């Protein structure tokens, strides 16, 4: 689908399945899938950010808390939503995100990141909205390519490393 085929929505308007949505000038998002989320993925995220709350890594604890199993970290769900955006716009295009979590994500959940009028929604297979993310972006074409490594999307000249924490 070309950008000319994309829809411009007003807040609250439903997005037709598979439709691209224009968020702003030259900023168009399409639907992407992530997952299914796995226990290994949750454990890897826990290790990366240092959040080992047992509700994410201990099934027995999670069941004692009334859940059917461990749940993904909310920030992991948001990260997967942002990843779907980064895939399309690159990291330099993002200025802000306001994420609201509305349902837990369990191992096995396949997530669909659906564009909305002002960002994206993360939907589970049954249609439940797990997270809503309002986005503020800049036109990716205005990002100076000379300052960005095209493979990583990071600043081309990184400050020197100064050891590890």
């Amino acid at each position: 689908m070309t950008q000319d085929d994309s829809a411009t929505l007003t807040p609250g308007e439903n997005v037709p399945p598979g439709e691209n949505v224009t968020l702003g000038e030259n900023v168009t998002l399409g639907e992407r899938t992530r997952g299914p989320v796995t226990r290994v993925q949750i454990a890897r995220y826990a290790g990366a950010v240092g959040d080992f709350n047992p509700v994410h890594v201990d099934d027995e604890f999670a069941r004692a808390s009334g859940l059917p199993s461990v749940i993904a970290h909310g920030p992991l769900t948001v990260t997967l939503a942002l990843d779907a955006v980064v895939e399309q716009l690159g990291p330099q295009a993002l200025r802000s995100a306001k994420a609201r979590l509305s349902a837990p994500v369990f191992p096995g959940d396949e997530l669909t990141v659906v564009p909305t009028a002002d960002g994206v929604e993360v939907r589970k297979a049954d249609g439940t909205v797990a997270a809503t993310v309002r986005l503020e972006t800049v036109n990716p074409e205005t990002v100076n390519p000379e300052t960005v490594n095209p493979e990583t999307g990071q600043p081309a000249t990184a400050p020197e490393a100064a050891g590890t924490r």
Partner: protein
Amino acid sequence: MDESAKGRTLVEDDLTVSPDVLAALARAVGSPAGTATATLVPYFGAAVGGESTAVDGLDLDLSRALLAGIDYDWRRPFAPGERVHVRVTVEDVFRKGANQFGLLAAEFTDAAGDLVQRQTVTFIERGSSK
């Protein structure tokens, strides 16, 4: 949740944006864009300084606490290996109906003192009596 915690600094520290941590996060994301995505969200503000930062800082009752949301403001992605200064503060604690809300703010600045990222993490404690 401790309403007197408002304004308290929970963590103030210098960190190196470890390439190993970025790589670990990219593996967790598990997509081709993961490496770039990791440079936007390598830290969870509530866990900077240890997994008990938010629990102790807000006096959260984990049996009734939920993570309700997280906001990011970016000036740019983090660069692997760069040195940043982080400050995590309790931005607000307030009651609304039967629930309490706690907001943590995490600000990351670079060696020049320029803001790289600001996060706001919102917790809800349901039916709080504290």
